[in-house]
């Protein structure tokens, strides 16, 4: 067996084994810290395997390795394969996932130190399960295994969001997250069954009948909208912040939400043949980006800001992919994974220190948490697209692609979003770290080593990844040459302008008129009409229909059955009263019947 494949199997199998072990052996799980260390060890091993794979692929990007076995036999042949498929795209994503996952697991050790032991054990069981399902998704040889990983990731996100199940809000959020994603996943199911109906297997580069790619792409995109929180289905992402911050960092920033983008990248042959859908993607991505950015501006909870920012960046990636530049979308996914994870973990450190998510409780933290402030600032600068940092390069690629695809509307929206992103990140940085310290921020205490090391690790790619664009493009099998043109210049200007504006308003307290202008947007955001729309449709439409049908079943159909029973009882009663007890009537019956049949006998 090829050592590379065995490495991939280790990356896949080890977290699964750990998750199973922690789940099945309650005693081990209840020990708490040791279980956590075991899980972290597993993720580190997976990281080393991923790293080794990435290294080999870097100097031989065209290599493709497969190890699959039949999973669903049908009439003799096998309908779907399960196993490991290694190529440039999957290896790079594997590395990203491994890095972020191990950092998060390490970080969680410190962040959740005051959790009771069994809960901690349960948390790390979920973490290992998540790592396994994400790897399963990444290494999928065909769309079926991708779907397996896809749903398992959704389930683990449900479990992780609802980790603190005693809190009703967490319960509601977990359910909402799972239901919305499940709703979108029916799109993926439709795609799969169409694919199997046409081609008999689930591989993405099978030949499709004419026009088939359009339908398939549309179904796939519906699932992506759900998972990657695009405009109408984004409502679950902000609520998902109920889960512990490391979970938000891992799932709702770097990996899980990126799965949608990964699906588009993976199923590129299908999307390539579906121009209309790609156009729709670009527009939708742009709209989501702007919409999320606007709402992020008025958020008071630091995690909500980052959540909406993720939503907006995902819009970016999708519109990039829609515009046809696989390189742009996928590279942005990678860079975003790192600096957004960095931002979330830093925010986690802050929350851990201040014990509250609200920006108003923070302020002037740069004195107490020096290193976290540096990390957060670099992360936000990279997000804002400061040239030199990784964020700029990937965002620039996307803007160029959208520009080349000739979609001025989308380009405008995306440019505006770039500016807004810089603005709200500065607002958050200023509100949280500079400004006058609030009461809680007084006695905040610095994060422990287990929290700072992951931040350090994540800082490196957040800064340096931009320069590695060349080798990464070879991995993706696309050409890349960095050149700065007018679009790049304008975005840089917008970014710097946004930072300056943010500093002026929040840092210096000038131009207070602008925040008041944002008030109506705040009302829309908090009211989040889209959210109510979904809730309303569920309670009125869904439950109403359900109650109607339940009533119909119990009182009409069941009623009919009871009526039948009643009818027999009633007729039984009638027959019983026929028996008067008087011999005269009996004789009458006998001879009446005799006369009748005699009449009939005679007539025949």
């Amino acid at each position, binding site marked *: 067996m090829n050592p590379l494949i065995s490495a991939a199997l280790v990356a896949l199998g080890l977290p699964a084994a750990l998750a199973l072990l922690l789940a099945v052996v309650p005693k081990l799980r209840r020990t708490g810290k040791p279980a956590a260390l075991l899980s972290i060890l597993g993720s580190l091993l997976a990281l080393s395997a991923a790293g080794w794979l990435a290294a080999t692929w870097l100097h031989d990007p065209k290599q493709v390795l497969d190890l699959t076995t039949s999973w669903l036999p049908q009439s003799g042949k096998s309908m779907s394969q399960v196993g490991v498929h290694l190529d440039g795209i999957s290896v790079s994503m594997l590395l990203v996932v491994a890095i972020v996952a191990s950092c998060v697991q390490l970080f969680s050790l410190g962040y959740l130190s005051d959790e009771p032991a069994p809960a901690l054990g349960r948390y790390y069981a979920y973490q290992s399960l998540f790592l396994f399902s994400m790897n399963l998704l990444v290494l999928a040889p065909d769309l079926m295994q991708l779907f397996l990983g896809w749903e398992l990731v959704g389930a683990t996100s449900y479990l992780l969001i609802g980790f603190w199940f005693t809190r009703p809000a967490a319960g509601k959020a977990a359910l909402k997250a799972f239901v919305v994603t499940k709703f979108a996943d029916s799109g993926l199911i439709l795609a799969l069954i169409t694919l199997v109906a046409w081609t008999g297997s689930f591989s993405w580069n099978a030949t499709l009948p004419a026009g088939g790619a359009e339908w398939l792409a549309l179904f796939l995109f519906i699932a992506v909208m759900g998972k990657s929180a695009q405009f109408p289905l984004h409502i679950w992402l902000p609520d998902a912040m109920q889960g512990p911050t490391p979970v938000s960092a891992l799932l709702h920033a770097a990996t899980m939400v990126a799965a949608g983008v990964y699906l588009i990248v993976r199923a590129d042959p299908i999307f390539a043949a579906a121009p209309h859908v790609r156009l729709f993607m670009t527009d939708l991505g742009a709209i989501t980006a702007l919409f999320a950015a606007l709402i992020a501006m008025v958020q008071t909870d630091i995690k909500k800001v980052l959540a909406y920012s993720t939503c907006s960046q995902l819009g970016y990636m999708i519109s990039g992919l829609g515009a046809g530049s696989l390189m742009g979308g996928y590279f942005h996914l990678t860079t975003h994974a790192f600096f957004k994870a960095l931002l979330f973990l830093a925010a986690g450190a802050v929350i851990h220190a201040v014990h509250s998510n609200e920006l108003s409780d923070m302020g002037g933290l740069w004195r107490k948490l020096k290193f976290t402030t540096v990390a957060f600032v670099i992360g936000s600068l990279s997000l804002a697209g400061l040239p030199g940092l990784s964020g700029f390069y990937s965002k620039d690629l996307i803007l160029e692609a959208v520009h080349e695809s000739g979609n001025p509307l989308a380009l405008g929206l995306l440019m505006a979003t770039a500016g807004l992103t810089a603005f709200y990140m500065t607002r958050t940085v200023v509100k949280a770290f500079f400004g006058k310290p609030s009461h809680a921020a007084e006695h905040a205490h610095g994060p422990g080593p287990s929290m700072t090391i992951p931040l350090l690790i994540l800082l490196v790619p957040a800064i340096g990844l931009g320069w590695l664009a060349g080798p990464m493009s070879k991995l993706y099998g696309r050409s890349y040459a960095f050149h700065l043109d007018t679009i790049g210049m304008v975005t840089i200007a917008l970014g710097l302008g946004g930072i300056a504006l943010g500093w002026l308003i929040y840092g210096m307290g000038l131009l207070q008129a602008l925040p008041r202008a944002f008030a109506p947007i705040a009302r829309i955001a908090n009211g989040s009409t889209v959210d109510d729309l979904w809730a309303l449709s569920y309670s009125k439409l869904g439950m109403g229909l359900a109650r109607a049908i339940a009533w119909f079943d119990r009182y009409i159909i069941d009623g009919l059955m009871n009526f039948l029973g009643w009818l027999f009882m009633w007729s039984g009663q009638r027959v*019983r009263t026929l028996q*008067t*007890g*008087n*011999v*005269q009537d009996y*004789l009458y019956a006998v*001879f009446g019947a005799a*006369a009748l049949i005699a009449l009939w006998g005679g007539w025949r």
Partner: protein
Amino acid sequence: MTAILLISSALFCAGVYGLLSQRHAVGVLIAIELMINAANLLLVGFGWRTGGAFGQSFALFTMAIAVAEVVVGLALILLMYRSRGDVQVDQATELAQ
């Protein structure tokens, strides 16, 4: 032969009429005897028509059966009288519905 048939049928129907309208147990017995008598008449008639002895012997047997029934009937009527005090057939509705 049609004469015999007509008469015996009429007698039979008279018996049926009596059977359904009598209230006294003995009355019912009379009706039944009348019906059986009609049957005997019919048998003798057919016997006469075809000349075989089957008619008359069959009639003899029926007579014997009829008498047996009367005897048992009377015994029952006696019992009914003893247990109910009267012999009105349509009052005997102890066993109903």
